[in-house]
């Protein structure tokens, strides 16, 4: 005779197994909050936003009143960097004009100007298994799911869900995120996705294409997420395996997603349909 407690334990165990199987299938689906997502993001977002503002205020006081000793040194360094940037900016402007002239001569479309929103990171993801954060811009600011997120240093990730005033961003470091990239010199394409902990990989890059350590990897614009030419990282390590068609490439990202405070979000990313139409 089986005791009531044994049946209870068995039923609980079976329910737990079914629950786990259900979750395993859910991992492969896009995130769905079943109607609770907007309310949760808004509720948590308001509190996270005010907490982040409080921390930023404290940091601001610290920077402005207690760290004055280092300001003069930093000022000198920034002045030198500014001079260099001015020169580069002038050169880039000339190149841009030349590019536009040549494009007109060749009757090519000029790249579309994507609207951009600057957002502040107000909270990090609570678990270590998903790499992402929450920003204080949402649907009211023109953000939608699939918008690319970047900093002046390079690509950061993609918006995966949006409420009215807040959005959740999945970074390139997340195993569930991948974008299309290309090597700057050979223009050969591959896919950028998370490799080991804290590093990016450039996969499906054919062995016949050349790439060198230190070379920049840019977005190709073929994934319908990022526009073409955004820096993703620099090649840190290349492994050639004779039995494989592809090279194994490790990329160093210029963006530290763990310490990001502000990001830029493109409001109108290139859509795959537009790419095919072109």
């Amino acid at each position: 005779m089986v005791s009531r407690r044994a049946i209870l334990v068995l039923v609980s165990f079976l329910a737990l197994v079914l629950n786990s199987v259900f979750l395993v299938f859910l991992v492969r689906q896009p995130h769905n909050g079943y109607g609770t997502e907007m309310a949760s993001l808004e509720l948590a977002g308001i509190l996270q936003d005010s907490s982040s503002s409080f921390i930023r205020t404290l940091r601001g006081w610290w920077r402005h009143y207690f760290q004055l000793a280092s300001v003069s040194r930093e000022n000198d360094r920034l002045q030198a960097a500014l001079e260099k940037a001015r020169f580069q900016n002038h050169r880039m402007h000339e190149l841009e004009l030349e590019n536009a002239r040549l494009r007109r001569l060749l009757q090519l479309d000029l790249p579309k100007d994507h609207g951009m929103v600057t957002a502040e990171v107000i909270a990090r993801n609570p678990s270590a298994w998903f790499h992402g954060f929450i920003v204080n811009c949402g649907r009211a600011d023109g953000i939608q799911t699939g918008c690319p997120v970047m900093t002046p240093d390079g690509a950061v990730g993609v918006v995966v869900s949006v409420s009215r005033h807040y959005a959740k961003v999945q970074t390139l470091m997340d195993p569930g995120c991948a974008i299309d990239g290309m090597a700057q010199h050979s223009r050969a394409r591959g896919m950028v996705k998370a490799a080991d902990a804290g590093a990016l990989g450039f996969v499906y890059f054919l062995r016949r294409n050349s790439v060198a350590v230190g070379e920049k990897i840019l977005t190709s614009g073929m994934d319908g997420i990022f526009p073409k030419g955004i820096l993703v990282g620099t090649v840190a390590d290349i492994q050639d395996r004779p039995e494989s068609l592809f090279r194994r490439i490790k990329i160093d990202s210029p963006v530290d997603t763990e310490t990001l405070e502000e990001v830029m979000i493109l409001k109108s990313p290139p859509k795959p349909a537009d790419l095919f139409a072109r």
Partner: protein
Amino acid sequence: MKYTRTGVVILVLLIWQTVFANWLFPEYPHYDVLLLLMVHAGLYESWRHAVVCAIFAGVLMDNISGEPFGFYTSFYFWSIVGIRLSAIYLYILNRLLPTFLVAGLVFLEHCFSWLVWGGAETAFLSGHLFACEAEALLTSWFMLAIFRRYFREIPPVDMPVPVSRV
């Protein structure tokens, strides 16, 4: 009133976990502090209160994190069930027990994530689990003492009697 207070605790823990912990110690990994509340609710609160607590905290966490929807709700719910069942055999008045339960749940949460993500290596990031366990063992007793004070350790009505005391 008690549910409101629990809701406030959940929100405070959530803000600590997603904002303050990461701003103050960005280079260190942090364990899921809501597990503290699950251990407290599982040991010292009624079934209904513990389950409501698990569902509210779980749904919030599921929506602000990138896990598949239901991950946290399921894990918190099964944690409550596990704690209630194990309370039959454990001496729940032992002050060290909750600390070890938190450390155990941190480990099980990593295992559950590993299972759900199909054996992805990210669940056991190098040193991550060890750091989380150390943090849980060092800080949970203090946090649980605050919870006991905050909730005034009201004895549960339907708590099973520990075997050691029968």
